[in-house]
């Protein structure tokens, strides 16, 4: 850098003073440089060294000036003209400076000889100037070249030989004119060597950059990225390795002064260092907190006050009555119990005198337990029923009011081999008919238990159902055996009744033939073979599948049969007077399930069909479904309708007996579950007693009181009355059928043990 600046300086000075430079400038076509440089020069002028330089150079320049003016007058003129127009003042100004400079800087002192002595200001040898390096140097030092104006040489070299002034003059000029300007020619003359000062490429470049006011140095970045030395990032190395200054270790004098002030205050008692808490003295510990006593409000519903501990009982006394003291076993029991399970946490003790009472060991513990209870035990509000438990018992009519009902087994009808499937008492109340697995139908005298009539219907098929025609005249017994239904007039009545019965049955023979051929009837009415006819069988009806149950209409003209195996035509209605059979439900889908039992309503034209789960009530007059009952049983075994027709009992194989009130709902009104096994049969008494019963496979018959009130608002009263035990259970079957005596509160039951029984 230093070298460059010096060269710059040199060029500058040359440009300032000499017109020759201007010519050269002309050549370089850098007119602006002058003004710039001159201003520069002005800036520098106060500096000593600069002025010195100028003096020196100006002396040299003057010489050159002369030469120049001599040599190129025409050019000079033109340039001066130009200068005058453009930079006139600068040149003049600079000239003026040049002249005044040596005078200003030189002090004139009266010397020793009395003459004026010029004291020049001290020369600061600029060590870093390039001049020292120059090999061929003029040794004249700082003496202005103008001093050598009159000499042919310009100075001396280091060997003391004259350095001759380079050739100048017209000859040279012409020579020079003829010669092309060398590269880097400036037209300046090196003052040291007196040779032309040429600029190198780099120097020219620098000059150009300066002209463009660019930064001369290559690769200099004027806007480098900021490096934050004092930032939040912790540096590994210290920024400064300077040791901690001492002042940091010296206690502050100012602070000490302030502390001393406080200390003095404390000593004098002006400042109290630990002021006692004011509140302690101010407020009294207790005051009347309930001064404005709020009126007692009722507790919030969610607030459950802690229960108080119960007061002590007699056995906690130090001297309890002797009966409260535990005996050995009680004592042992108490001690063996886990402390948590003990009903009381102490064992009653007796002390003869108060002085003998020891301290109670568990006192603190009990208090602690109480504390724990107070804040840890969840609190619940429990409603305590302070009532007599007897008031919970339902008011039942006394057993005397419920009498009569069957209680004991009066007669056992023995004779059947195998199970007795069905039992039926005749409407007169004298006979009872039974049908059994041995294929016989037997009629017994009720009171004596004597078998009066027997009919062997089949040898291989069981008689599943027997029923009497429910009218007072014309005793007809219907029995189902296999797929045949026999209508029998047993020869046990007087002849009048017998013939009357036969007449009723045989009246329809003509109708049956009339209708023949149209369509396959569901039942075929035919006369039995002579053997059976002799025995009293009048008509047999043959249906397609095994008949399980027969039910009569109350007038005795119709009877309905169920044969569950016949999927499509399970229910058949037969008319006795016309000997016709029909199936009311053509499709299985109508009944939606396999019918189990069928029953006529006792007074209305309704037909009750019980499938496995539901009971459907069909209106026969309108031929539509009127109601469906949902007893909720899995498999209904039997149903019976109350003689008044508004209530229905349902027995099911899943041990339940269900009472339906048809006016109430389709759900059962009561569900009774007192049997251990499935219920086989249920029956209402039809003779005016409010009784009903159920028989089950657990071998018992249960008798209930079931009273219906005429007041519609009052529900039926059901009271269990009696469990009749007597039948034996044979291969898981108990009592298979039950029937009531038509007039008396007597009950007939048919058991799997081969007997039928009368209960009264």
């Amino acid at each position, binding site marked *: 850098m230093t070298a460059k600046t010096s060269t710059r300086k040199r060029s500058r000075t040359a440009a300032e003073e000499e017109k020759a430079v201007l010519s050269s400038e002309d050549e370089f076509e850098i007119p602006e440089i002058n003004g710039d440089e001159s201003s520069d020069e002005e800036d520098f002028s106060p500096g000593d060294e600069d002025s010195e330089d100028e003096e020196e150079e100006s002396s040299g320049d003057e010489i050159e000036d002369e030469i120049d003016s001599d040599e190129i007058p025409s050019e000079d003129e033109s340039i001066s003209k130009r200068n005058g127009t453009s930079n006139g003042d600068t040149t003049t100004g600079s000239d003026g400076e040049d002249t005044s400079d040596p005078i200003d800087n030189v002090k004139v002192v009266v010397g020793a000889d009395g003459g004026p002595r010029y004291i020049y200001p001290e020369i600061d040898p600029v060590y870093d100037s390039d001049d020292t390096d120059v090999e061929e140097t003029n040794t004249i030092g700082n003496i202005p070249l103008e001093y050598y104006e009159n000499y042919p040489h310009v100075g001396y070299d280091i060997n003391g030989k004259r350095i001759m002034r380079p050739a100048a003059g017209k000859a040279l000029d012409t020579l020079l004119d003829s010669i092309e300007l060398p590269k880097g020619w400036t037209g300046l003359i090196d003052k040291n060597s007196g040779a032309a000062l040429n600029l190198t490429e780099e120097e020219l470049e620098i000059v150009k950059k300066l002209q463009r006011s660019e930064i001369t140095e290559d690769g200099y970045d004027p806007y480098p990225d900021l490096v934050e030395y004092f930032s939040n990032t912790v540096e590994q190395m210290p920024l400064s390795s300077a040791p901690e200054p001492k002042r940091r270790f010296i206690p502050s004098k100012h602070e000490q002064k302030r502390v001393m002030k406080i200390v003095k205050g404390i000593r004098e008692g002006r400042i109290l260092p630990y002021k006692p808490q004011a509140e302690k003295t101010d407020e009294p510990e207790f005051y009347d907190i309930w001064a404005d006593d709020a009126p007692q*409000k009722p507790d919030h519903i969610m607030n459950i006050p802690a229960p108080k501990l119960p007061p*002590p009982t007699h056995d906690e006394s130090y001297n309890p009555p*002797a*009966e409260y003291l535990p005996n050995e076993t009680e004592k042992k029991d108490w001690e063996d119990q886990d402390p948590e399970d003990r009903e009381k946490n102490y064992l009653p003790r007796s002390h003869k005198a108060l002085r003998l009472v020891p*301290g109670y060991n568990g006192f603190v513990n009990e208090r*602690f337990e109480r*504390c724990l209870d107070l*804040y840890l035990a969840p609190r619940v509000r429990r409603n305590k*029923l302070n009532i007599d438990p007897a008031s*919970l018992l339902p008011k039942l009519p006394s057993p005397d009011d419920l009498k009569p009902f069957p209680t004991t087994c009066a007669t056992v009808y023995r004779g059947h081999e195998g199970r007795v499937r069905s039992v039926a008492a005749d409407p007169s109340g004298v006979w009872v008919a039974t049908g059994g697995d041995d294929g016989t139908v037997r009629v017994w005298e009720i009171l004596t238990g004597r078998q009066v009539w027997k009919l062997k219907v089949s040898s291989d098929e069981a008689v599943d159902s027997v029923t009497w025609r429910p009218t007072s005249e014309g005793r007809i017994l219907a029995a189902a055996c296999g797929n045949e239904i026999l209508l029998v007039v047993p020869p046990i009545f007087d002849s009048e009744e017998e013939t009357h019965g036969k007449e009723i049955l045989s009246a329809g023979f003509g109708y049956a033939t009339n209708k023949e051929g149209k369509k396959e009837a569901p039942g075929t009415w035919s006369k039995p073979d002579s053997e059976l006819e002799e025995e009293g069988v009048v008509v047999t009806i043959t249906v397609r599948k095994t008949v399980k149950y027969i039910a009569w209409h109350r007038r005795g003209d119709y009877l309905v049969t169920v044969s569950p195996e016949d999927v499509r035509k399970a229910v058949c209605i037969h008319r006795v007077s016309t000997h016709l059979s029909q199936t009311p439900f053509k499709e299985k889908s109508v009944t939606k399930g396999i019918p189990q039992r069928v029953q006529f309503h006792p007074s209305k034209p309704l037909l009750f069909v019980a499938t496995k789960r539901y009971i459907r009530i069909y209106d026969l007059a309108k031929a539509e479904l009127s109601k469906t009952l949902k007893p909720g049983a899995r498999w209904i075994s039997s149903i019976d309708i109350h003689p008044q027709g508004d209530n229905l009992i349902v027995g099911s194989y899943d041990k339940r007996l269900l009472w339906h009130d048809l006016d109430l709902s389709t759900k059962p009104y009561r569900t009774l579950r007192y049997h251990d096994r499935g219920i086989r049969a249920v029956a209402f008494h039809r003779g005016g007693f409010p009784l009903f019963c159920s028989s089950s496979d657990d071998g018992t018959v249960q008798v209930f009181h079931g009273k219906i009130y005429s007041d519609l608002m009052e529900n039926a009263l059901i009271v269990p009355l009696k469990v009749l035990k007597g039948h034996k259970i044979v291969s898981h079957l108990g009592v298979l059928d039950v029937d009531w005596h038509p007039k008396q509160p007597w009950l007939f039951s048919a058991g799997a043990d081969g007997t039928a029984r009368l209960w009264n």
Partner: protein
Amino acid sequence: MGKIKKKGVAGNARNFITRTQAVRKLQISLPDFRRLCIFKGIYPREPRNKKKANKGSTAPVTFYYTKDIQYLLHEPVLQKFRDHKTFSKKLSKALGRGDFSDAKRLEELHKPRIKLDHIIKERYPSFTDAIRDLDDALSTIFLFANLPSNRDIPAKTIETCARLANEFQHWVIRKRALRKSFLSIKGIYYQAEIQGQDVLWLVPYKFAQNVPSDVDFRIMLTFLDFYTTLLGFVMFRLYTVEGLVYPPKFDKTMDDKGAGLRAFLLESKRVGALEDGKEKEMVVKTKDVSKQLETLGEKIKEIEEKGEEETPTAISATEGEETVNEGLDKFTAIPSKDGTATDILQQPNADAGEGGKMANMFSEFTIYLSRETPREPLEFLLRSFGCKRIGWDAVLGEGSFTADDTDPSITHQIVDRPPMIGLPPMPAKKDGEDTEMGNNGTSGQRGKVMGRIYVQPQYIWDCVNAGRILRPDSYAQGAELPPHLSPWVKAKDGEYDPTAPVADDGESEEEEEAEEVKLVENGKNGVANEKESEEEEEEEEEEDEEWGGMDTELAGEGEEDSEEEEEEVEAVEIPSSEDEPSDDEELQHQRELEAEAKGLAYTDEKKSKKSEAKKKLEKEKQQKQAELERQKMMMTKKKRKLYERMEYGNKKKQDEKERLESKRRKIEREKKKGKN
């Protein structure tokens, strides 16, 4: 269809919060939460449906009522807890540095102190509410007053408790509020009536209490903090309403000498305003006045010399002239001229009637306590029932009315030691005279002093519970005491009543046939027997009445007499059981002989009759059972279960009763045997 309800936004799910959730919500530690709950009286709940409350989980958790917790959020005590947390950090820091002076300063000046006043007011908006909850507070405070101080329990706490306990006792004495007391094996129960509320508390016997290691005293002390504050405020209110200065004067020197209750001096509000010196003068003056007023002789003089706790009465005596009668005015209905009836309203009367009489039950007595008797409870009890002159042995501490056990003014002496060996056993009758006869000069040798009645401590308790002065016979020194019964148990129908005689019913006798064969023949038949027993009962009841009223009729009869009485009672039963059989035996023998003579096999008619009756009874029982079964059959399941539960409870009670009765019968029989 209604709008589908979202789960977990209402009802149980919303109303209840688990403990963990609560702690998290309040942002405090569990111990702090515990303390807060104790102070605020917040307790866990049992939701109806746990599963719903716990978001479907059935794990066992504690539930709190959400609103309870919500309302804890703004609790000032909560802020104190936080302050305490920072304080404890500072303290531990100071201690860690070893800067003990700093730690001390922190402890003294910057420890956050929790004030519970607002909580008291909040929890008990009315004074009656506070009284209602006083049971546990008193029991705890009395317990702590009797505990030794240790690392967990600072001595200051115990001191406070003792002070509060004594203050409370003073109030009870002054107001004559004590109603009942009971000596149990755990301690002594007292029941006082404060503003119409019954307050029951238990005080341990004066023994070094066993302090178990598994008790968390931090919890106990938290409760105690609350209870002492509560009792403090309650006492202030009670004292001020009574017109007394609340912290009553406490005489440290007296207390150090073991004066107990006597270490406190009650001051009236009006007098309390006076200066100390003047007040003393006043006290002296009042003494003079009372001296003039009451001319009861030497006794009174002694009382006053001892500086008795007469101040309250004395004050009232002096102020009686100035003050307006604070009691109720008597309203007398003016009869109307036209003769229409007017309603007469009842007025409570403190002085007259049973209450007043009962409250001053012992006022006529001068009682001396022997040194083996427990002084504190006796003093408290006697003074609460009007006894003003209580003396005791110097061993029992300061403040006695007289230390001289030979003082002739003493009417009763309470002793709890066996009678002196060497002295002839005294018949309990007229023991005063007897002692006069026997040990005329032995008073110096700690024998019996004439002219006073010696009773065991239980006498006082039984008198208090009975509400009248009982005959002291059965409580004489060395006598076997009658059983001490709890005054709170009122035998209801079908419960065992130890005071009522038991009927020796036939069945139980039959049960013990093996033991007493003779008794078997007693019952002719079941029905007759029942009737008989009923009659017996009636007789016994009559007998009982006599027995109960005996103290008026029989005078000066001792313990033996009462036993005789008992014997008599039993004797009533005996004829039916023992005398008849002997006749029966003879008869039976006669019949046997007759039968033999006739050549017939003798059949014990009686026996057959009896067996018939038995059968009949059994049948009846069976029928009843069947009927019950029938009824049960008709009940709904829910009702049946309820019924069975109730039956179970009743049966348990019945069994307990029967057990006790049979035991008592056995004991009585044995007693009788022993006598025979």
